């Protein structure tokens, strides 16, 4: 592994990106990309693309009473995708030397030719002009350059604060940093480089009494939160300052009442709403899923390929955008993983479906343009349709205004359990915490809160969304594909008011 600034780090890169073997830009990566693209073309591919990537992750996570988990994980490899006689083939491998670029191309060609035996349909990929460009995350403080003692202070402080309340039996706190160089080349002449830095953190408290347990977390229950930013993001989370509340609430939940089941008005906080968007909006709008490519595992969608401009997905307050051009999240980039330049795309406009999360292959099958949503899990996996930055557009006013508008009901946030069917229609989510709302004010804390519904009915019950000041984004991983790969993306929302939602579980 290389921890040093390479001799050939190119001048356009910020300090946080000057690391590793591939910091030299296309001057370094270009020959490897050319080898793979050239081998694919020489082997009969009518189209080929290559992704060459180097990545590193630094973690310091600790559980109360245990030895901390401090580790740095690195990888360097490439994936080659080819189209031979209208049939795709893909191969990936770690990079040991230049020969691996050609070997991966050879494996991809072999897979395509073998697949032709079983395929009755052929792919027609509309040609496109070459796209070239450079993208890099803005990081004020390189998280890899932060000293051990600084990380230790944050983690130890959060751990101690989370465990301080009697009744907390286990606390966990951690910080992480990720960085990667990603290069793309295709037989169409595209040559792209993107350099990413991410930083994140989390704290979790588990309280127990007898056989009962409850958990509370911050800033999100789903692996904490990670942003495309430097260490300044972690400092801004104020983990030690928030951890005391997290521990205290976990203990309070042990004896908190359970809400009566039935139908109620609810305001969903941004962390839970991010997951709601992910499961019932993002996944439902993946075009490969809609076209049946994922029918065996991730599933289908209740939304059909003819839904654009026709399907009333939600109320007029539902405006959902996919916008990877928004900086600072795990879904921020310039080019997706098949080289399509990203753009702002309205997916739902005033409740009506207006576009899909699509790739070149899936878009071509419905005669549309890709919305730059082909994303892959590093160099090792095929690009699939994943969300990017998929946000519920904010409305107006504050969260307090929203609670006041609701009057009586519940405010809930931070996911505890989540389940949705394979058509993204019938869902049920549980939250870590909920508060009863009376006369527009939060009152008592409630445990084991859950709500459920049918996607278009649920979004049809959206009455109002709070304004931009209360908008938050959350980076999260997502699983899809066979073999299962992770997509890294983000969802954002301000708290939103839904009327007449089913609460409680069977």
């Amino acid at each position, binding site marked *: 592994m290389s921890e040093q600034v390479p001799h050939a780090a190119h001048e356009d890169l910020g300090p946080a990106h000057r690391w590793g073997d591939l910091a030299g830009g296309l001057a370094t990566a270009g020959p490897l990309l050319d080898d793979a693209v050239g081998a694919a073309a020489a082997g009969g591919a009518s189209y080929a693309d290559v992704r060459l990537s180097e990545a590193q992750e630094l973690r310091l996570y600790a559980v109360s009473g245990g030895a901390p988990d*401090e580790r740095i*994980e690195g990888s360097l490899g490439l994936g080659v995708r080819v189209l031979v006689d209208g049939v795709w083939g893909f191969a990936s491998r770690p990079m040991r030397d230049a020969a691996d670029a050609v070997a991966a191309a050879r494996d991809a060609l072999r897979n395509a030719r073998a697949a032709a035996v079983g395929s009755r349909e052929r792919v027609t990929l509309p040609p496109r002009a070459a796209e070239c460009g450079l993208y890099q995350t803005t990081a004020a403080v390189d998280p890899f350059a932060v000293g051990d003692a600084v990380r230790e202070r944050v983690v130890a402080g959060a751990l101690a604060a989370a465990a301080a309340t009697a009744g907390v039996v286990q606390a966990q706190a951690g910080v992480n940093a990720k960085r990667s160089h990603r290069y793309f080349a295709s037989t169409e002449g595209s040559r792209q480089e993107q350099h990413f830095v991410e930083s994140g953190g989390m704290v979790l408290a588990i309280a127990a009494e007898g056989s009962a347990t409850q958990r509370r977390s911050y800033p999100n229950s789903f692996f904490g939160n990670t942003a495309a930013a430097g260490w300044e993001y972690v400092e801004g989370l104020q983990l030690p300052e928030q951890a005391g509340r997290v521990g205290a609430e976990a203990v309070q939940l042990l004896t908190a009442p*359970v809400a009566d089941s039935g139908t109620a008005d609810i305001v969903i906080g941004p962390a839970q709403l991010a997951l709601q968007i992910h499961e019932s909006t993002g996944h439902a709008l993946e075009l490969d899923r809609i076209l049946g490519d*994922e029918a065996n595992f991730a599933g289908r969608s209740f939304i059909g390929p003819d839904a654009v401009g026709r399907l009333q997905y939600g109320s007029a307050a539902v405006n959902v955008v996919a916008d990877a051009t928004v900086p600072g999240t795990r879904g921020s980039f310039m080019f997706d993983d098949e080289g399509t330049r990203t753009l702002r795309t309205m997916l739902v406009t005033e409740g009506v479906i207006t576009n899909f999360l699509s790739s070149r292959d899936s878009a071509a099958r419905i005669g549309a343009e890709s919305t730059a949503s082909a994303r892959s899990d590093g160099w090792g996996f095929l690009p699939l349709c994943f969300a990017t930055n998929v946000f519920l557009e904010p409305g107006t006013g504050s969260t307090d205004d929203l609670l006041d508008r609701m009057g009586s009901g519940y405010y809930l946030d931070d996911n505890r359990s989540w389940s*949705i069917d*394979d058509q993204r229609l019938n869902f049920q989510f549980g939250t870590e915490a909920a508060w009863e709302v009376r006369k527009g004010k939060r009152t008592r804390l409630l445990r084991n809160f859950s709500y459920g519904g049918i996607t278009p009915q649920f979004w049809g019950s959206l009455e109002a969304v709070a304004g931009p000041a209360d908008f938050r984004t959350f980076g999260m991983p997502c699983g899809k594909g066979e073999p299962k790969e992770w997509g890294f993306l983000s969802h954002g929302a301000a708290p939103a008011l839904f009327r007449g939602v089913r609460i409680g579980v*069977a």
Partner: protein
Amino acid sequence: MPETALQAWAGQDQALTALENALAAADADHAEVFVAARTGNHTRFAGERVHQPQTIIECQVMARAVAGTGSARVAVSSLAGARDAVAAASDMARRRDGAGGGRPHGVAGPGGISGAAGLWHDTTLAWDAGARSALAGRIMDAARSAGVSAAGVLTAAITELAVVTSAGQRCYAAATEAGFSLTARAGEASSYTADLGRDVSVLSVEERAETAVSQAAATGNPVPVPDGVHDVVFGGLATAELIGFLPEFGFTGSAVAAGIGLAATRPGAVLAPAGITVADDATAGAGLPFPFDFEGTPKQRVELIAAGHVGGAFSDLASAMATGGHSTGHAHIARESSPAPEAANLIMTPGTASEADLIAGVERGLYIQRLWYNRLVDAEAGTVVGTSRDGCFLIEDGKLSAGLRTGRFTESVLGALARTDGIGSRLISLPVPNVWNGCASAPAIRVRGFRFGSRPGKV
């Protein structure tokens, strides 16, 4: 060996030599280094095309060093980087010496590993891209002829793990893996089949695919799952999904150390009928056996439910140190997660009944082939939320009748096991996501009283 045959990425001699050389760079009290590699060939198909034929080679070399009270890990993606990884881990561990946190655990000592059953099968190696693609084509052709659409995946892989420690452990194993899954759909009617193992020749892939296609074709418009409490026969895949939650109910060494969960709070308690035994058993012939873990500790059989009673917990070196016991060989380290003991080859002991026998014992109820998006709601009660999915049917007069649409449930796995009165004889295996070489295997079971529906209520 034909060009298309699977080949191990690391290889025994290369792996062990590289790891031993790397360990020489350790400047620490203890050190361990492993390489985990996997070469996976996947033929994925849907509708009318093999849309994702893939060869994915993954390799991770991870070093761990302990210096005083400090410990750290460094990982790279090639054996060539192993020595630098060991040196870097040593440096990080020394820097951590004296910092906060608990005392780190040591490394595994030598020996103790006996071979797991049937790791390597040439039949799986020979199931190459051409053979898999041709089979995918036959399945899609047969489906089309029957008015059915088919989507699935056919996989052949080699998994390798080598571990070397400063205390003298030195081990390597490689295993083949074959798996398949298929969803056949006619309108909203569907069927599903899947299985996983080391040897493709015992999976009967084509025969089971034909059965799934025929079943989907023969199923009329499915009906909603009736809200209410039903007698339910869960197929092996659905049962495997359910028992996959057991570790979360407190069968890990770390849960025991924290005083949380069944093994800590209710040891020996009766949970289920005496016919139910669920063990993590990586030495068994079923599922994906493997002889040792990432720390080089031999894997032991651990019974989570022993003849209906709460059994023991599985552990790694860290949790074993915390509980004063010994590691059962369940060390695991997942991406973006802290190391924690993990079940890797869960197996429910089969009974003697055929699936048809179990169904025949239900006058009116449900047959549930596949569950989907199951998530833990309440570890104390064992409550899980999820849905049924493909290949589910009403049972009427002891026979399958109408197909079922998706149905939601929020039920206790522990409660379901307690109400089980029939256990099938045939194990079916499915992969456990996010667990290296993870697998759960189970037979069909018959549960007297399992509620489906979204009727509001309380946990």
